């Protein structure tokens, strides 16, 4: 699973040395992933590292595990390839995005953190919107249940806090 995907091969055919230059990424559990420089720089974090010229032996990503890194790479490859503006492409990309975030919550949580750490705006927007959609219309109890969050308020606080936005509870 650590090898470049079929997409990587396709990009190799592209003209221009810079674009097809391969970058190696190293996950927190030391797995290595190759991807094209073009796809890699969708992450602002990696782009800065490349500019600062410290990537000869690969880009270390201590905050991102291999499972998530593989998913992020898939996301980036897919979005880098989709350069045309055709309506068909846009529809396909939309379906890709929709199924991409149909994951279990721990994975979604990790995707958000990874997208934030790697500074990939598109993925961050997508995953935050997914979480927002999961919150919409739910009561406090339902939200806690959905995300497995423990209520860490004291009973006094639970009474006091609604008063700050009393209108919502009237």
């Amino acid at each position: 699973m650590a090898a470049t995907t079929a997409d990587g091969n396709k990009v190799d055919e592209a003209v221009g040395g810079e674009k097809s230059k391969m970058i190696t990424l190293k996950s927190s559990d030391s797995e290595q992933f190759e991807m094209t420089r073009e796809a890699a720089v969708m992450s602002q974090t990696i782009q800065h590292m490349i500019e600062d010229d410290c990537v000869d032996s690969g880009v270390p990503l201590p905050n991102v595990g291999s499972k998530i890194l593989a998913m992020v790479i898939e996301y980036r490859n897919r979005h880098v390839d989709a350069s045309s503006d055709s309506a068909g492409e846009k529809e396909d990309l939309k379906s890709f995005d929709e199924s991409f975030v149909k994951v279990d919550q721990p994975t979604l949580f990790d995707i958000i953190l990874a997208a934030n750490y790697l500074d990939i705006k598109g993925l961050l927007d997508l995953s935050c919107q997914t979480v927002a959609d999961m919150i919409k219309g739910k009561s406090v109890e339902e939200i806690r249940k959905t995300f497995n969050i423990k209520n860490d308020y004291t009973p006094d606080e639970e009474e006091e806090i609604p008063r700050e936005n009393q209108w919502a509870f009237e």
Partner: protein
Amino acid sequence: MSQEHGWSSLPVDLLILILNRLRWSSHPSFALVCRQWRSAVSPFYPAWITPLLLNTTDAGTTNVQYYSPYFQINFEVDETLEASGAKICCANGRYVTLCQPRLGLVMNVDLLTDDFYYLPRIPQLWFEYIVSDGMGNMFAVDATVEQAIATCTQNSDGEWGSWDYYDHGPELRASPMCNPVFHGGLLYLLLEDGRLAVYDKCKDEHGFEILNKPQSFGFECKDRYLVESDQHELMAVLVGRRGMSMNIVKLNEQTMEWEKMASLEGRTLFTGTLTTIMKKTGIKWMQNKIFMARLYDWSDVVYADRVECDGESAFVPKSRGFDTINAKVGNEAYGTNMWSYELGQPDKATDFWATRESYCSIWVDFSST
């Protein structure tokens, strides 16, 4: 991979990104989930809970302020009405109609989107009232000296067509400072003595006709405001000298007489400007109350941005240090800034003496109902 902590330990800046995608009305629930989530929620004041009093010193050059009778805060935003010296003629929910008589300009403004719609020049320099029915029809009425009525209609693209103009009959002594009101498809003008004059657009040639009944209010009053209630009844708010008495009368459409109301039946009245609004509200302490557009202190403002999110508008104070806990959330407490009266509690009436009206103010409503 960090699963040790879970969603309750999501960093605040990420929580804020998620929160920004939720409408304002979801933010209180978000804050109650757990402590970390609450730290992402900043103070905000919904603009849709009750009607707001839009007020400004000059419609062109000074910032608009919105007074909320619920929060008892006058929010000042970085917007002007961009119509110097204009008169605010009427309000329909989120739309306000302004007139610059010297230029002959009338415009309809959507306060939430800042869209301005200009009407063609009015046919005469001055009209006593300019009112919209909220459904794309504008009526300009002059009842002094002799009646003149002009009407204008908006098409589906939002553009206003030309004015139709009619000169009519004799002068009507209309009640000042109170707009005519639409009721049952007709335009009702309240006359000084409590009588009503009615205009039917379909019968243009007749102008306003004075109804035989009602003949009078049966009460002495200094100021009068006409309103159509939330249940389509025609009512009038009668204010005694300096606010020391207040009566609400409803038109009994069988007998065509004004009848005094003992209670507002749980509703709330927002009055004292050309437009009066009557609404049902779930807020207990506001029920059966009448709010007049008079404040003790107009200069007590909070600088805020009006932020729209998913169709809901809220005021976000500019100063981070704004103390929300001590902000007055209205109740019976002493020191309420807007003058109000509870129907059926005459012994609690206080007179107007320390309050003032604004130069330019009108009740607007940002709720979607």
